């Protein structure tokens, strides 16, 4: 039912929508124009004292007897300052002399005097002109009419009857504007003030339909919940999956929102042409688990098979409880944000920290552990566009990069937040490893994302979407063990900062593996944190034998963690593990933890989807 009403509502709206705007606009104008001004009250002289009627010399009865026309009425009348009889046969009127009953013409001089006496204002009257043809300014009147125009600001014009010298109309520019919009309001383009024309009756019928169907749609489209501010409604969590079944992220919404709105508020813009009105059918999602019965709008846009598998229009799907939603297109749907590069700092030869200032402030969903997708445009770069500081020149010159670095198609690359947003003053901080591609004989081009990032300078614009991922600090104050390597520093560093910043008191261990000191990022920062916070310990593990100064551990990070912490730990069951790093390191660490009997629920990791 509702979809059909909606269809008819919009089609009728299309046909007479413009007239609707005109009705509202002209109604507004008529209401704004002061009625007294429209009626020219401000140029109307106060009514003169009624003069005593002079002794008439001829009886009206005599005149009536003389007249060839039937006379319905005789009355006393003043033509300018001259007393006359005014006779009427019901249709037209004429004047007779009170002395001898002879006919009295209305002369230009009479009209000038009548108009001048009726008018107040600073306009000067033009000489009266007898109208050749009656315009709409004197519609409804017949017979000869005199026109007297005044030279005031609002172009006052008085119309005087050529039959008996009465003032028929007092017009001015305000009236002309009023009359014009009234013509539009009445759809009365012949200007006869006829509002019973078939055109307006048809439009009015359409208007009534629009109003009635609009009321219906209003009740159909509003949920009671929408009148309650979102924060007073129960919170619900929607978990969003891609079509491949991969979990994208969880978004918070409130009971009573539609899924379309809940996702949109979290930057997941489902495709839609109609903006959530159930009329385009583009925002289809699949409800995992128990889907509500399909509405008529669902049935209109989605075939029965898909309805059975839980497909629904997101704009028609109220959030009632926590639920799971599958979204085709997944991550590509997330809103694009724009940011400006604030700084690009070479932390190590091939790890670079980028600070991006977003144009629109980031919401609380940007949590440590989340990653963004940087939108890499197509580019054509030269090798020397990849800038690097002098002290890393050797590292860079040992790479065999081609002269031209080309990316034809825009791509997206994921980078984790490497510092909590609030700690970075609202900025996004990323840590990007330069991926030189495969070196040696079977060359592979350098990484598209890192090539692009490494060419950026402060002030450049970057687009990204997100946040994504479900790698996050779990609530509760369990002892935490962070094990990472390579660019895995990024999310772990953000998590550590966030925990210590928020005053976490549980034990926090950070074991980080690098090949050598030169490639280990943020060492001093981590050491400083460890000095400052008694509950935080930092262990740098170096795999290359070349250097091992005091306090440095040699070997692979998972083994070092095992030896240094896990083997002697009294209660591994009450620890949480957070892992992030290159695939080999991650695999080795996870199997180590499994061997130690640590349940998978205790282990969170981010494999960078490699």
């Amino acid at each position, binding site marked *: 039912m509702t979809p059909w009403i909606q269809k008819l509502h919009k089609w009728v709206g299309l046909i007479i929508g413009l007239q609707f705007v005109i009705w509202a606009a002209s109604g507004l104008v008529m209401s704004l124009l002061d009625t007294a001004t429209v009626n020219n009250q401000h140029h109307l002289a106060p009514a003169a004292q009624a003069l005593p009627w002079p002794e008439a010399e001829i009886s009206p009865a005599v005149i009536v007897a003389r007249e060839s026309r039937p006379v319905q009425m005789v009355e006393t009348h003043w033509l300018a300052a001259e007393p006359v009889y005014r006779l009427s046969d019901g249709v037209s009127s004429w004047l007779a002399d009170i002395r001898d009953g002879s006919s009295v013409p209305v002369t230009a001089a009479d009209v000038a005097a009548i108009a001048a006496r009726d008018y107040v204002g600073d306009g000067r009257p033009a000489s009266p002109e007898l109208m050749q043809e009656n315009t709409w300014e004197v519609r409804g009147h017949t017979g000869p009419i005199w026109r007297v125009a005044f030279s005031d600001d609002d172009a006052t014009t008085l119309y005087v009857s050529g039959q008996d010298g009465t003032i028929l109309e007092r017009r001015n520019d305000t009236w002309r504007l009023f009359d014009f919009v009234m013509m539009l309001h009445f759809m009365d383009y012949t200007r006869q003030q006829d509002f019973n024309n078939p055109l307006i009756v048809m439009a009015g019928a359409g208007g009534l339909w629009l109003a009635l169907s609009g009321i219906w749609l209003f009740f159909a*489209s509003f949920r009671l919940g929408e009148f309650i501010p979102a924060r007073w409604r129960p919170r619900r969590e929607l978990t969003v999956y891609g079509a491949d079944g991969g979990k994208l992220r969880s978004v918070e919404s409130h009971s009573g929102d539609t899924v379309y709105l809940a996702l949109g508020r979290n930057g997941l813009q489902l495709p839609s042409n109609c903006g959530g009105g159930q009329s385009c059918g583009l925002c289809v999602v699949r409800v995992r688990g128990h889907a509500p019965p399909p509405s008529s709008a669902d049935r209109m846009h989605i075939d029965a098979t898909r309805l059975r598998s839980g497909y629904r229009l997101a704009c028609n799907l109220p959030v009632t409880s926590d639920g799971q939603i599958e979204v085709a297109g997944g991550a590509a749907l997330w809103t694009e944000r724009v940011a400006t590069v604030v700084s690009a700092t070479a932390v190590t030869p091939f790890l670079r920290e980028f600070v991006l200032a977003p144009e629109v402030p980031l919401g609380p969903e940007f949590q440590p552990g989340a990653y963004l997708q940087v939108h890499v445009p197509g580019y054509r770069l030269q090798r020397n566009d990849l800038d690097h500081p002098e002290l890393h020149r050797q590292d860079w010159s040992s790479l065999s990069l081609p002269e031209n670095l080309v990316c034809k198609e825009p791509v997206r690359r994921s980078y984790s937040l490497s510092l909590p947003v609030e700690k970075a003053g609202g900025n996004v901080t990323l840590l990007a490893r330069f991926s030189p591609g495969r070196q040696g004989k079977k060359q592979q081009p350098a990484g598209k994302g890192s090539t692009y990032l490494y060419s950026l300078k402060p002030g450049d614009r970057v687009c990204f979407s997100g946040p994504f991922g479900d790698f996050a600090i779990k609530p509760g104050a369990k002892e935490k063990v962070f094990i990472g390597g390579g660019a895995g520093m990024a999310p772990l560093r953000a998590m550590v900062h966030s925990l210590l910043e928020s005053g976490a008191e549980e034990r926090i261990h950070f074991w980080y593996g690098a090949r050598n000191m030169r490639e280990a990022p943020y060492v001093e920062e981590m050491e400083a944190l460890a000095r400052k916070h008694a509950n935080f310990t930092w262990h740098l593990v170096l795999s290359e034998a070349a250097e091992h100064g005091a306090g440095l551990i040699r070997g692979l990070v998972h083994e070092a963690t095992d030896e240094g912490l896990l083997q002697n730990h009294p209660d591994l069951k009450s620890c949480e593990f957070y892992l992030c790093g290159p695939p080999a390191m991650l695999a080795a660490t996870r199997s180590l933890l499994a061997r130690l009997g640590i349940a998978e629920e205790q282990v969170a990791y981010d494999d960078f989807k490699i």
Partner: protein
Amino acid sequence: MKPAFWARRAHKWIALVIGVQALLWSIGGLYMTAMSIDFIHGDHLNHVAAEPLPKQGDLVDPAVIAARYPAMNGFRLKRLLGEPIYEVHHAGGVDLVDAVTGRLSGPIDEEKARQLALSAYQGDAPLESLQLLDKAPQEVGTRPVPMWQARFGDSGNTALYFSPQTGNLLATRHTYWRVFDFLWMLHIMDYEQRSDVNNTLLRVAASVALLFMLSGVWLLFYSFRRRSAA
């Protein structure tokens, strides 16, 4: 969020504010345009006979009236219930003077009012009541009092109003007129006088209505695109 979303949202929320009034406007607008204004005016219910004045016959000379009314501003010679009569305007008001006998014949008494009502009324219902009113009912609030009200027992509850001073028909009222007037009141949102189109309420409502209509037109741009690539 896309513009389509905002357009839809704007249209929906403005509807919350102005929707009912928009419905009233459209109901009133349709009624007022679909009903012939002549019918609303009750032209089918009244007919005031307009006979010409007698061509012969000795009528009272105005000088006689002028002598009786020294402060006379003027007069009108017309027929009332078929009889020629002078309607004399003087500083004290309006008097009716029989143009044949010269006798004072006004103001209109109940018997004359009944005759006036019965001769003017074009329907086929009996006269139900006849009252001289000192306080004008709302439906003739702009007319001067006192006035004669003649009510007829037809389906439209027709009422004719006459001036006791001049005998003129002041107004014709019936159900369709009353509905029209009520809808007009709703249309211009002046619930007191039913005549002031410059009231603030209407101005605000019309402004919101304009936004409402514009948001609807804006929404039209998004409502006809089907599955084109988003």
